[in-house]
């Protein structure tokens, strides 16, 4: 609630937008070369004056919300070889400050993210590749795209426990029985690199991504990012 330290002018339209970009970049797992972003409701209507587009691009480039380069993000994108375009989008019944990012990496990697900026720089990812998810990026989050089969979730949970990582929240959804599925696990720490590699080697796995916390270290108190009074909010 006190924080983040950020480049103005809007915690939801600037800092939150930047964090949405940061999450999208991590989901891609590579440096993005192309980004197509749909802006919903208030993001579309008042985004320009709030630097929303600059902030989204800054996040895609890996800049934090307090990075002094944020106002120059378009020039930085050109230098980094990132092409971007924006359009207005109706994303349906989501928070008015929402965006849909379709991202492409140099190696042909692709991912799509719908996320909302809910105020004070706090964000909520609601869809990844069309699958329903729910995570804020305040803690480490494991995203797994896999083929639905008996026991996959149990195997993943066992691996996470064996890595001494505690699970905070879990959302799972699938296209259809035996079809593509997604598992989204918010955790108290990130999974170890070895566990991630092992997980990715399983035949059911399409891809595995570890989204590291997007809140800067100094953000531990307030920021809305932070768990002040979390004991009563959990």
């Amino acid at each position, binding site marked *: 609630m006190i924080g983040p*330290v*950020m480049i103005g002018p809007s*915690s939801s339209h600037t800092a939150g937008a930047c964090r949405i970009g940061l999450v999208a970049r991590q989901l891609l797992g590579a440096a993005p070369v192309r980004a197509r972003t749909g802006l919903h409701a208030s993001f579309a209507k008042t985004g320009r004056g709030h630097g929303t587009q600059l902030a989204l691009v800054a996040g895609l480039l890996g800049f934090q919300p307090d990075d002094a380069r944020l106002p120059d993000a378009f020039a930085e994108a050109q230098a980094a070889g990132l092409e971007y375009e924006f359009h207005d989008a109706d994303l349906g019944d989501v928070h008015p400050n929402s965006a849909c990012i379709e991202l492409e990496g140099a190696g042909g990697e692709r991912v799509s993210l719908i996320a909302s900026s809910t*105020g004070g720089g706090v964000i909520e990812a609601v869809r990844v590749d069309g699958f329903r998810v729910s995570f804020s990026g305040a803690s480490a989050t494991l995203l797994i795209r896999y083929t639905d089969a008996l026991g996959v979730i149990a195997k993943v949970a066992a691996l996470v426990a064996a890595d001494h990582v505690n699970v905070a929240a879990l959302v799972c959804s699938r296209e259809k029985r035996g079809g593509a599925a997604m598992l989204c696990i918010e955790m108290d720490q990130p999974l170890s690199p070895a566990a991630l590699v092992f997980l990715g080697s399983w035949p059911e796995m399409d891809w595995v991504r570890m989204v590291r916390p997007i809140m800067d270290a100094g953000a531990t108190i307030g920021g809305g990012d932070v768990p002040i009074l979390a004991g009563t*909010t959990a």
Partner: protein
Amino acid sequence: MNAPTPASAWVLEQDCAESGLDAQTVRGSMLGRIREMRDSIRRGLATDAPSITGMVGWNAKGLQGAPDVLNAPLLKRVQAYAMAVNEENARMGRIVAAPTAGSAGTIPGALIGVADHLGLADEQLIMPMVLAAGIGQAISRQMFISGAAGGCQAEIGSSAAMAAAAVTELLGGSSRACVHAASMALMNTIGLVCDPVGGFVEVPCVSRNAFFAVHAVSAAQLALANLESFIPPDEVVGAMAQVGRMMPLELRETAEGGLAQTPTGLAVTARMGGKG
């Protein structure tokens, strides 16, 4: 000067438990935020450079340099500090969201303004600021803290409530007085719409932070005199959330109503090439 209230000590304890950090680290992090706020006040008071739209940029410095006609140095300081932060924000400068960027001047204006008036050290502001964060979190349990979701009441109302509790703690108020200060600040902000000219966080946002920093100090003054909020604090937050849900979309940060739709507001929008 004062021992922390049980309320702020409890908030700190909760945060440590959830984050896994020790109290010393969390206090240090908060002191860092207080210094960042101070830096943005300093930068904001030192310049009169206009914002991108040219609607704001000289207000904080202008007020600071003007004669103190009311012979009320605290009032003037609180207003100047608050606007300094929000004018920095409007220039895409570096600020601390508290709880949002549009309302970022209220807490530094009220709390650092009062502290400087009384000659208090930044370390004395740590626990009041921790309490402010706790109040903000308690409000956010019942409503979204964004103008787009709940109107300006959700942003400036929250910041004023947080600041009111912090100033009350700084001046030696009890936990109960702190919470009632927050409640009184909130109940007198209900209904405030978000109608930014051109969609930019400038008009009325910059002057609004000056007004609501003073509003927070007023609430602290009442609470320190043992005046209380007749409607209990949780019910006040519930009422604000209800009003937010009833508020039309045109008055929630879309720049489709209120000041944004005045002839002057529309002229700015047109000059800036469409809605911000």
